[in-house]
């Protein structure tokens, strides 16, 4: 299991990556359905990043108890 700081870093990177996928879909794809699929994938990646970021703080909090 990565340490708290690593989880935070991974979480932030996943959030940014998700956003870049969303932007890339706008630039590189042209149809609504293709864009929708990539935007959904980007948001899913952001949710994963949010989970990592949240876990880093939750784990740290449990560790102090």
């Amino acid at each position, binding site marked *: 299991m990565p340490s708290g700081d690593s989880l935070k870093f991974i979480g932030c990177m996943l959030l940014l990556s998700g956003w870049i996928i969303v932007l890339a879909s706008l630039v590189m794809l*042209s149809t609504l359905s293709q864009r929708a699929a990539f935007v959904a994938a980007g948001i899913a990646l952001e949710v994963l990043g949010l989970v990592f970021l949240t876990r880093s703080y939750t784990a740290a909090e449990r560790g102090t108890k």
Partner: protein
Amino acid sequence: MNPPNTLSPTDLVLCILCLLLSPFAAAGLALIQQGLGRSRSAAHTMLATLCVLGISAIVFVLVGSAWTGFQGGDSQSFHALGAQWDWLGREALFAQSLHFESLGTNPAQLHAALETCLHMFAVGLAAMIPLSAGTDRWRLAPICMATALYSAFTYPFFAHWVWAGGWLSRLDANFGGAAQIAPFFDAGGASLIHVVGGLMALSVAWILRPRRGKYTEDAMATAIPGHNIVLVLFGCIVALVGWIALDSAASMLFYGVPAAQIVGVIINAALSAGAGCLAAFLTTQIRYRKPDASLSANGWIAGLVAGSAACAFVSPLAAIFTGAVAGVLTAYMVEMFELHLLVDDPGGAISVHAGAGLWGLFAVGIFGRHLASTAGTPVNAGIGAHLLAQCVGIATLLGLMLPFIHICNLFLDHFLPYRVDRDGDWQGMDIRELGAGAYPEFVIHADEFIPR
């Protein structure tokens, strides 16, 4: 760059009246925040609110307004990958772009001044939101610094993208027309005020960690009830007035809504707030067998937040549905953050502002009808194109703004620690930072059960 929407004399009078009433949103929120905190930090919370409003107004007008820009004003943009990326305003620093002597003769100047005035109140409201998550342990000095940083940089970026002709408001023009993607739509500031403020609250709550005594040794949450629920509920009513005013002014200034259509904003805001409150009331009644007053109040505000994304651009039925979902969502999210994620957010700001705000932005894509662009012209796009644009905005809030806000807060916390020391935590912020309590003639019960 689109020219600013022109205001008729009636629109102008109503817009100024709405701007005058806007501070009631901050007043209502302040009452809610201090009522949901402990009595030993009540004066500190109210003073922090005043400091936040003062600093945000000064810093925004002098610095932030230059980055935010105005409709029809100068902006920084670049061409890349076949699109024009308008990413930042380019006005003069220290409000030198505003010339008050020509407001009566120059409509563009008048519009710019009205926009600045609205942003000034909006940034104050947004910067107040994290106070709720940091109640009872966030020191005054870092509050002031975080507010300055937020007003100078964080808010202006997103405000420019949404309300001042930035790339999010021009998605249709840059990426294949309205049939493929509509412009991102947010008539009342659910994204740039509430979601950004709510994400800041999440970041602050993470950094501050929970209040002492909030969680037991085995990480079980204990209840630390708010000290004055009457003020909280009264604050909800006060906030309604300010919310309607802020939503109305923003709709008129940024989406060209005429004065006659403002009655729709009023009706929808009241319906959305009422539905949110009742939904939270029923949810808590079913789950806990008795309605929870503080969660019902949170539901009211969540309804206002979610409804502010669409304002008068949805039907009353859609406003009720949006508010009701926001109320239910808030009741569950508050519990999730407190019990499962160990995030101590005394006022429920993260759930109310970020959670309900994100839902409100998504709901615009589903229910929005006759949506306009920031140029005030109707956007003829299907539900898919609208939903896609709203999802791009939501992805930008989560994927770009949250890491940016969190890194800024971590950086600031490194140099100016956010959290009060152990003694201050026990004494309360009033005694620790102000030297006197909010209620000196009343006996304040100490946490005898918490080990010092």
